[in-house]
């Protein structure tokens, strides 16, 4: 499969590149000029419609890792219009599989997170008006509308907090369990969701636009990741228990 990755130079990009490059041909893109690696790379601003359409020619799937948080203009350009450009490119080239990404509050904003537990992805989107959440939520809504009107499938992977794998975990003195977010995952486990999202047959997806919470198995019970395991077959390997469990009682 030839896969276009948008925003490949971000924090998650190299991990995703690593798990996909053995079995797939990758075209990596980002706003940065430079890339030091074995795959094809093109400088591309996801807010550039014609640029995204051009980069998507001949690919079988698009993975969107692009994200911009603090600047209001660029946040809308990247997080919202970037999704429009990606979906337009998919329609124009007949690309059947899109992997979108975002933070958990793309769907479950403060109205959920501040009040609720056992939060799944099967809920109406309520991002709130925070810039990052809201612009990502608009992008997801664009993906949803395109999936309802065109012959393509969108799989959205939601993340929140990333941690280092246990082999690289910080010393115990640096770990503060009270700062731990119960929607955390290691970079490596997060990346392992991408091949599954790309390769799952259409018929095994309940709809043309499906959202999955990607975080490790945690006892907090605030969010659910059961659907990711059941449908994608994603199984986290690290439960990050050093962040939420005492060594001894």
């Amino acid at each position, binding site marked *: 499969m030839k896969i276009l990755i948008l925003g490949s130079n971000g924090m998650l990009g190299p991990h995703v590149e690593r798990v996909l490059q053995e079995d797939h041909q990758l075209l990596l893109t980002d706003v940065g000029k430079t890339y030091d690696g074995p795959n094809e790379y093109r400088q591309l601003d996801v807010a550039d419609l014609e640029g995204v359409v051009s980069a998507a020619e001949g690919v079988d799937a698009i993975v969107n890792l692009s994200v911009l948080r603090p600047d209001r*203009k660029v946040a809308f350009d990247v997080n919202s219009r970037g999704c429009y450009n990606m979906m337009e490119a998919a329609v124009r080239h007949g690309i059947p599989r899109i992997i979108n990404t975002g933070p958990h509050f793309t769907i479950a904003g403060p109205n959920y997170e501040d009040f609720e537990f056992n939060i799944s992805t099967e809920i109406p989107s309520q991002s*709130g008006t925070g810039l990052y959440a809201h612009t990502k939520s608009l992008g997801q809504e664009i993906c949803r*509308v395109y999936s309802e009107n065109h012959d393509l499938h969108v799989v959205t992977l939601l993340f929140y907090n990333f941690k280092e794998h246990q082999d690289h975990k910080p010393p115990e003195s640096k770990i503060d369990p009270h700062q731990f977010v119960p929607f955390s995952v290691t970079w490596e486990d997060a990346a392992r969701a991408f091949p599954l999202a790309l390769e799952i047959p259409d018929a095994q997806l309940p709809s043309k636009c499906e959202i999955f919470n990607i975080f490790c198995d945690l006892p907090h019970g605030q969010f659910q990741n059961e659907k990711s395991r059941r449908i994608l077959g994603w199984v986290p390997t690290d439960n990050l228990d050093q962040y939420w469990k005492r060594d001894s009682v």
Partner: protein
Amino acid sequence: MNILVTNPTSRLSREIVQSLTFAHEVELAAGPFSHGETQNELVKDVDVVLHSLQDSPSIDESERLDQAMRQTYNLLWACVQERVSRFVFLSSLSSMKAYPENYIVNEKWRPLPTTEINGLCFHLAEFVCREYGRERSIDVRVLRLGDLDWDGKTGSDSVLHGADAVNGVMRAIEFDLEPGSWAPASTWNVFHLQSGGPLKPSRFSTRKAEAELGFIPEGIQK
């Protein structure tokens, strides 16, 4: 009231301003609506903002999307900061047209937007408005307008005559909604506006606008 109306290139905006000026202080403002102090200054001491999207062939799809999402967000952000009490957004009934014509579609039906750029922009701007309405810091009203007709020549099945549009928008600007018997008035309200008559009934139900805003389209016999 002090009222700010956007989109001076729109005939509807201009007609509404003309009607409002008899009883209110009205300012017509063109975008683009950025963020920052100038935006806050624009809505300072304003009671109601009436916002509509430009419909000009000279605007490309990226600009349309920017106007629908970012600029609507910026306006609402400024309105909340400056304590503007009401925000009325002019949307479109286009997102409801995918339902069969014999269905009695009202505001409780889920919008089914297509990816046609104008309809998509209306839908996305509503999406922005809804999050602000949900936070209860400003009274947000969305008016989904039928196909505007100023000269009686539109053959649409969801036509909205210019006079009816002006009448409906004026009511949305001026009317305080009655609280329910068990809850305060919602800060998120959608109303469908279209014309009709005995010979050509409305495709979309306007019952809510009639009951809550007193909207009476021409040709409807009471």
